[in-house]
């Protein structure tokens, strides 16, 4: 119970830190979407490239987060942003690439060829085909990728507190340093709750954005 007391007594700081955490993650996700979704669409046209891009993203994902912060620190120090929000957002954008690219790629690949053919037969240009047929059909899977990326990013952003990015990780970091149990617990609790809430929220968005015609024929992904 004293954990809740801690949160209530420090609600200003807690709200500020939640805002910071959400800001880092949403900025990173927005950037990652801007890079990853077009990239995932481009590589559906070049099979040889697709294997390499997904492989590269896979290797990026393998690098442990704190090690990635460490590896980026000397590089980003050259432009004066070794610590703080810049390396945190950069790392999150890099990590989010794998789920976003892979899901976009598989979604566009799995659009039934008959539907694409029908679109072509109606005289759609490549761009129209993409915008009116392929993207609406694949949007649930693309959003599922974004959801995975978001939940993962929230966890990694907590570690980014150690490179001065702020966010809810600060509570855990300061709590460990001060052996302040309530502080650690409230940090851990809030990060987990944030991840769960975002997971649920994204699931809801997934359901809302899916075009109605598709929802009927395909079982909704959990």
């Amino acid at each position, binding site marked *: 119970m004293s954990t809740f007391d801690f949160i209530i007594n420090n609600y200003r700081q807690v709200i500020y830190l939640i805002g910071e955490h959400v800001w880092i993650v949403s900025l990173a996700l927005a950037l990652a979407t801007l890079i990853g979704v077009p990239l995932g669409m481009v590589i559906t046209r070049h099979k040889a490239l697709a294997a390499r891009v997904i492989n590269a993203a896979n290797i990026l994902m393998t690098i442990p987060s704190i090690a990635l912060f460490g*590896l980026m620190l000397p590089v980003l120090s050259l432009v004066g942003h070794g610590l703080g929000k810049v390396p945190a957002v950069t790392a999150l954008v890099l990590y989010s690439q794998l789920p976003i690219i892979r899901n976009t790629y598989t979604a566009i690949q799995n659009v039934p060829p008959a539907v694409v053919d029908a679109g072509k037969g109606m005289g759609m240009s490549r761009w129209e085909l993409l915008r009116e047929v392929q993207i609406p059909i694949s949007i649930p899977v693309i959003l599922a990728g974004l959801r995975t990326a978001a939940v993962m990013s929230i966890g990694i952003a907590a570690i980014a507190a150690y490179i001065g990015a702020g966010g809810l990780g600060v509570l855990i970091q300061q709590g460990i340093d001060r052996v302040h149990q309530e502080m650690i617990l409230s940090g851990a609790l809030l990060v987990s709750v944030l991840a769960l809430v975002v997971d649920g929220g994204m699931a809801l968005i997934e359901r809302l954005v899916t075009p109605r015609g598709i929802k009927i024929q395909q079982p909704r992904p959990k």
Partner: protein
Amino acid sequence: MIRILFKVNRFFLIMVIFGAGVAAQRTGLIDYFFDPFEYPIFIKLLGQHLYLVGCSMAIATVTGLSVGILLTRPRFKRYAGVGMYIVSLGQTVPSLAVIALAMSFLGIGARSAILALSLYSILPIARNTLAGIVAVPPALIDAARGMGMPPGRLLLEVELPNAMKVIITGFRVALIINIGTAALAFLIGAGGLGDLIFSGISLMQTDKLLAGAIPVTLMALIGDFLCELLGLWLIPQGLRLEKQ
């Protein structure tokens, strides 16, 4: 255009390796590894890191496999959905939070770090074991039953080999997450290579920082590779051919 890119790929790789070498020299990383005072410390931390990963993975593999297998047995089958739900809930909890929670309950030291790491690694292994066994074609199980196999042999000779590919994927995910999270174990006093990374960040000492970050990265990449080899060893040949 793309073809040209593939052609210059090898040249580009050589340039990157060369650049990395120059950077290692300029940041003092090479000097660091040859420093007679720093070198034994690095070896000790590496040993601690491997110990953390090894112990927790051993515990997690045994527990995860048995939880996954138990949940597919007829007697416990109705809890499979609930178990799956708990596991997927647990996976949204960030790794730093798990480490911090273990510390606040068990105090500092390697013991609580190993507990946190193994709890966190059980999740992917258990989930994939469950999913792998559930996905075994029912026809195969029926055929085995028809041949008069007892449940134990059915599990060992039909269900597990068929699910092995998915189980190894889960093991791989768990191993990589584990290696990365073991770097955070320094924060609760369990040592490991995270020591070099965090001290390097705090002191802004690039050579120390890289001496921790590069081995951790390499360890994760090597672990990934070893899991692929493990797959070659454990997945029966007939199943491998079928997948291609």
